[in-house]
């Protein structure tokens, strides 16, 4: 099913009619939750458009945690907001496909179906947002209404989406949700300013899980928090994911953190995915120089003290047209060819790894040593959660 003929730019501004909704009765894949193909987003039009996301492919499997890593400005938020159709003008989806594969949901009496996200009507999008796909926005720490008690936030969500619940049931559900994120029910009577940053973020997570979604998107949920709170929240998210089996997209600029929570990781740079691999392989054996740079940016807790440099320089201006590899100016291994041609994202080795870098075009023996390492197959299983093992349902 191709939807590339659908009118798109600037379709967020045009009120979509309900007839444009394209849903087919049968899910086309049992395993995928979300499939994004050749997806591009600009801010603005014409010459001066900022090409924030360029030709991105992404799949998220059921119960999988897909991590998206990359510096600020690499297009992580733009990608997930555009896919879920939350972006407003001047953002324009200039091409691509995004489909959601929903399982039957007995809570709301819906059958299994496939939803074309870019063709869907506003009404259809409303019916799946929160209940099937929920998002914790990057600015979530300030997303709670300052004049409402926490109880009112839960009440509102449940009243809108679970009409059959009465007041007592809604209250009971809210208490249950708070418990899931390790908060006492007395928090319900509080206002947002009476809570710490970590508590507010937990409330946002509880709200995101309120309707038992199939896909949860977390955009930098712990970036504004200290490491202790971050560690606790990451632990809770892992437990919740294992318990309820939802799929998750977890976005952060901290690759070391992502390796701990994600099953698979996509590394973004200047609007494109430059490497994609299972989390442990990506950590043990990075293949893209940018991934290597990100991994070498966290000072270690053990070993000899040595000077580290991070990734000197800054990302390119996305309003300029890019020739060659977008990482070239900061790459310690750049070849002459990198200035002329943009490397495509191609499969390498076995095990479904992808990389966009000319270094991998030739013989592996010519690779710089740090990009040649082998992933250690042993003792890594208990690190990042592997979906198949942990999901009990």
């Amino acid at each position, binding site marked *: 099913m191709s939807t590339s003929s659908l009118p798109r730019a600037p379709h967020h501004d045009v009120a979509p009619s309900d007839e444009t909704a394209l849903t087919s009765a049968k899910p086309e894949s049992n395993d995928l939750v979300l499939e994004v193909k050749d997806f591009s987003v600009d801010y603005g039009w014409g010459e001066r458009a900022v090409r924030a996301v360029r030709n991105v492919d992404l799949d998220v499997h059921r119960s999988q945690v897909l991590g998206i890593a990359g510096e600020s400005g690499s297009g992580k938020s733009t990608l997930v907001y555009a896919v879920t159709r939350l972006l407003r003008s001047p953002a324009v989806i200039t091409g691509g496909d995004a489909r959601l594969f929903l399982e039957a949901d007995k809570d709301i009496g819906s059958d299994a179906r496939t939803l074309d996200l870019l063709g869907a009507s506003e009404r259809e999008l409303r019916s799946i947002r929160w209940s099937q796909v929920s998002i914790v926005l990057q600015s979530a720490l300030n997303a709670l209404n300052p004049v409402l008690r926490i109880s009112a936030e839960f009440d509102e969500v449940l009243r809108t989406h679970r009409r059959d619940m009465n007041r007592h049931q809604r209250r009971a559900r809210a208490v249950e949700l708070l418990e899931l994120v390790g908060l006492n029910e007395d928090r319900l009577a509080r206002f947002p300013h009476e809570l710490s940053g970590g508590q507010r973020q937990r409330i946002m997570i509880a709200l995101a899980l309120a309707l038992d979604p199939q896909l949860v998107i977390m955009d930098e949920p712990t970036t504004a928090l200290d490491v202790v709170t971050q560690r606790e929240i990451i632990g809770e998210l892992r437990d919740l994911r294992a318990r309820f089996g939802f799929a998750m997209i977890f976005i952060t600029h901290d690759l070391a953190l992502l390796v701990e929570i994600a099953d698979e990781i996509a590394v973004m740079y200047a609007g494109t995915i430059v490497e994609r691999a299972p989390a442990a392989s990506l950590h043990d054996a990075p293949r893209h120089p940018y991934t290597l740079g990100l991994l070498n940016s*966290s000072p270690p807790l053990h070993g000899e003290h040595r000077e580290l440099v991070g990734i000197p320089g800054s990302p390119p201006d996305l309003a300029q047209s890019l020739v060659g590899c977008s990482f070239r100016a900061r790459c310690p291994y750049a070849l002459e060819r990198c200035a002329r041609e943009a490397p495509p994202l191609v499969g390498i080795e076995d095990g479904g790894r992808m990389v966009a870098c000319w270094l991998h075009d030739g013989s592996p023996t010519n690779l710089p040593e740090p990009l040649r390492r082998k992933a250690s197959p042993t003792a890594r299983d208990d690190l990042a959660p592997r979906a198949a093992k942990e999901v009990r349902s």
Partner: protein
Amino acid sequence: MNEEGKSLLEARGLSRHFVVRAGGTIIRKKRIVRAVDDVSLDLRAGRVTAVVGESGSGKSVLARMLARIVAPTSGELVLDGSPVAIKQKRTLAYASKVQLVLQDPFASVNPVHRIRHSLERPLLIHGAAKTDVESLSESVLARVSLDPPSRYLDRYPHELSGGQLQRVSIARALCVKPQVLLADEPISMLDVSVRLGVLNLLRGLCDEERLAVLYITHDIASARYIADEIVVMYAGQVVEQSKGTRLIDEPAHPYTRLLIASVPDPAALTRDQVKGEHAFTGAAVSEGCRFYPRCPHAMEICRTSEPPMSEVGEGHMARCWLHSYTSEVSSGALTVRQRGGTVSKQ
């Protein structure tokens, strides 16, 4: 330039208490928050001292007292050998010797003016000649490796990345030729990829110009990278302190271990049990150890009396009953020896 190791700013028994109205919707009682309680620090030329602790542990209040933006409830400050009259207003001379760099460069550098303006202002206030400000601004940008400086002077803050703007705010602090640089979480709002650049810059200023640097963070791994001495704060108190990185290699306090276990570290296979009490609200007045409610090794004595600071190794102090009990105790999983003994899992 100052002689290496010379004390430039010393804090002795610095405390700051706040009176706040306690929660509860009906009866509102007054409560004292001991945001910083009896903290002593010695910032020396050519040394980086790191203060590490999670949010609410009192790090910013401490930094503001050192910068004399917040008045201490009690305690003393000694600047370059002379006592500071704490009760009086901060002098311009003090401000030019002790400069504070804040966490969010986008909030601390005025967004409506060009970078030029943000640098010239402090230069003029501190008495630079009008004809010199341009060259002084350029040289200070060069010191923070914004090269070529002329390219940055006419930019606006929003045209720079977070890392570049944090360099500008460090440059602005350097304008007045301070001896002491207080950096309050200077990298926590920055991308991981540019954090090392800012840390290397602070380390370089310290080594090459013999500044005394206070580096505040919640990330103990970054403290290990940059610091000569590490101070761990919890709920307003210093709970562990060591020269070098001893307290990371051999942490004595359970809270320090929690900080270490919290660092994202894909290579670590085992983690300390983290007993989270999220409702913790800061420096509440209570008896016993302030970390008691969260401590996995807590004993009866921890609930009833506050542990003293005691020596656990050379230049290594910790405030924990596990290390200052007068006789040998064992608390379930742990066997502990008196003073300097190691904590070993059974």
